[in-house]
């Protein structure tokens, strides 16, 4: 459904991605793991077209999307919840969520989407009219995920969604990821929480220094010696 072939990305003189290839199957949870700075976020940014490619191609549902503008990618249903939340701090929680359903297609289903987000995160309903910038870290993460869901994604890319969340919320997030998959939404998950993310993933990719170095089912990777040593802190 989503396929990256030999994607390369440069930041100025520095190459961050060296020809990454990966495939995300429809309806699957795909985990992308790797050390800090490996290039995971860069990969997601490349897919969302907020940084230019230096080489390679990205296809979604068989069509190239690496030639589109970022908003067109979202319109196709490829939605990202960025690393570090990136909320609109001077807008309320509700307004943040509304921006999530900015595109016409998502706008039509706005009311039900909002219901669903509030059901996932009841706390957000309580805080609907608080400015997002004054929320606690965890609350902000909830808004970020909720905002992504408002866009009616076919593929939801989550960049470190559990970062800074209390264990109880982390569990919730992982539960939500599973539920999303069960509802037919494809999830591309980038996580430091390697064990947990591989545990729920149908498929996993390991990224190191800008290259995909390993792939397999989540279970395979969990049992891989290299992965154990480098990422699971065994």
């Amino acid at each position, binding site marked *: 459904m989503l396929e990256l072939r030999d994607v390369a990305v440069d930041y*100025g*003189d*520095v190459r961050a991605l060296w020809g990454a290839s990966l495939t995300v199957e429809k309806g699957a949870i795909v985990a992308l793991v790797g*050390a*800090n*700075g490996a290039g995971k976020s860069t990969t997601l940014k490349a897919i969302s077209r907020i940084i230019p490619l230096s080489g390679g191609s990205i296809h979604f549902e068989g069509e190239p999307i690496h030639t589109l503008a970022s908003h067109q990618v979202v319109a196709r249903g490829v939605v990202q919840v960025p690393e570090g939340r990136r909320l609109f701090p001077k807008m309320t929680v509700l307004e943040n969520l509304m921006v999530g359903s900015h595109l016409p297609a998502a706008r039509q289903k706005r009311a039900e989407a909002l219901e669903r987000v509030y059901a996932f995160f009841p706390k957000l309903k309580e805080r609907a009219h608080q400015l997002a910038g004054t929320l606690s870290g965890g609350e902000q993460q909830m808004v970020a995920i909720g905002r992504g869901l408002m866009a009616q994604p076919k593929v939801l890319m989550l960049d470190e969604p559990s970062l800074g969340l209390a264990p109880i919320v982390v569990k919730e997030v992982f539960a939500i990821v599973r539920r999303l998959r069960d509802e037919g939404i494809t999830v591309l998950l980038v996580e430091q929480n390697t064990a947990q993310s591989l545990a729920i993933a149908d498929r996993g990719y390991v990224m190191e*220094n800008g290259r995909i170095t390993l792939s397999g089912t989540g279970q395979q990777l969990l049992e891989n010696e290299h992965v154990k040593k480098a990422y699971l802190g065994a």
Partner: protein
Amino acid sequence: MSKVKELILPVLLAVAVLAVPLVIKNPYWLNVLILILVWTSLGTAWNILGGYAGQLSLGHSAFFGLGAYTLAITATRFGWNPWLGIALGILLAVPLSLFIGSITFRLHGPYFVLGTLAIAEVLRLVALAWRSVTNGAVGIMVPRLFMGISRAPFYWFIAAVAIVAVGLTWWIERNKVGYYFTAIREDQETAESIGINTTGYKNLALVISAVISAVTGAFYASFLSYIEPDIVLSEPVSLQMAIVAIIGGRGTVLGPTVGATLLVLASELFRAQFKQAHLLIYGLLLMAAILFLPGGVLGTIQQRLKDRRAARLAATGATFVARKEAS
């Protein structure tokens, strides 16, 4: 030892600058050089506060005007020796800057910029209206610091001011104060958290900056031999100070010098070359400079050098040294 060595080049440069009138006798060019030095001093003053400490003021005409008016008023109303007037201007710059600081340092970002602009504008309007002291728009004829036809003494005076200002910046950059100024520029909260008295250091930067501006203002008044509020207290003065520093490279020792040289020469050249269109060309140049050299001339060069070094380091595979160290 190495301290002494470090000083050789700057001292030679300073001597060379001071020797210029011995070589260039043409009064027109000497006049242009004086203007360059005036703007070097002002840009450097601005740079200490704006470039290093990151407080982007558009109200420095207040200090410039204070220096100019103190000299003018004490000399014409009380018959003071102009040198005494300059000294008083320096003294007064301290309380004025602390007062302005006590108001504006509570503002952040664009509000600080606008706040400084507004205060300077209020001062200009008051100077226009307070005719019993300032003569209002009629202005004041200011006695010359140096008699005679030669511009050389003027040159030496302002060259000395500029050298002190640039030298001070050089010293600041190499010392704790400089690090502290920069830390405040980069992030005030973090700076507080590691023990930096941000208000104190911002005031320090402002006072230094104000004093240099005031001396230059006093000099300028005497050099023009005539001042009125729109000359020394107006927004264009404040703007030009910032332009000089930013085009040259803010937060660099010689940036304002480079900026002043380029801009004064450009303005002289354009005025001769483009006649009515010269301000249009100047505006275009200013826009181009900001768009294509956002860090200023020196800033961009320095950044290029740094980037190259970073690229080299990255190429050698220093992705994340830390991981290999611990555990």
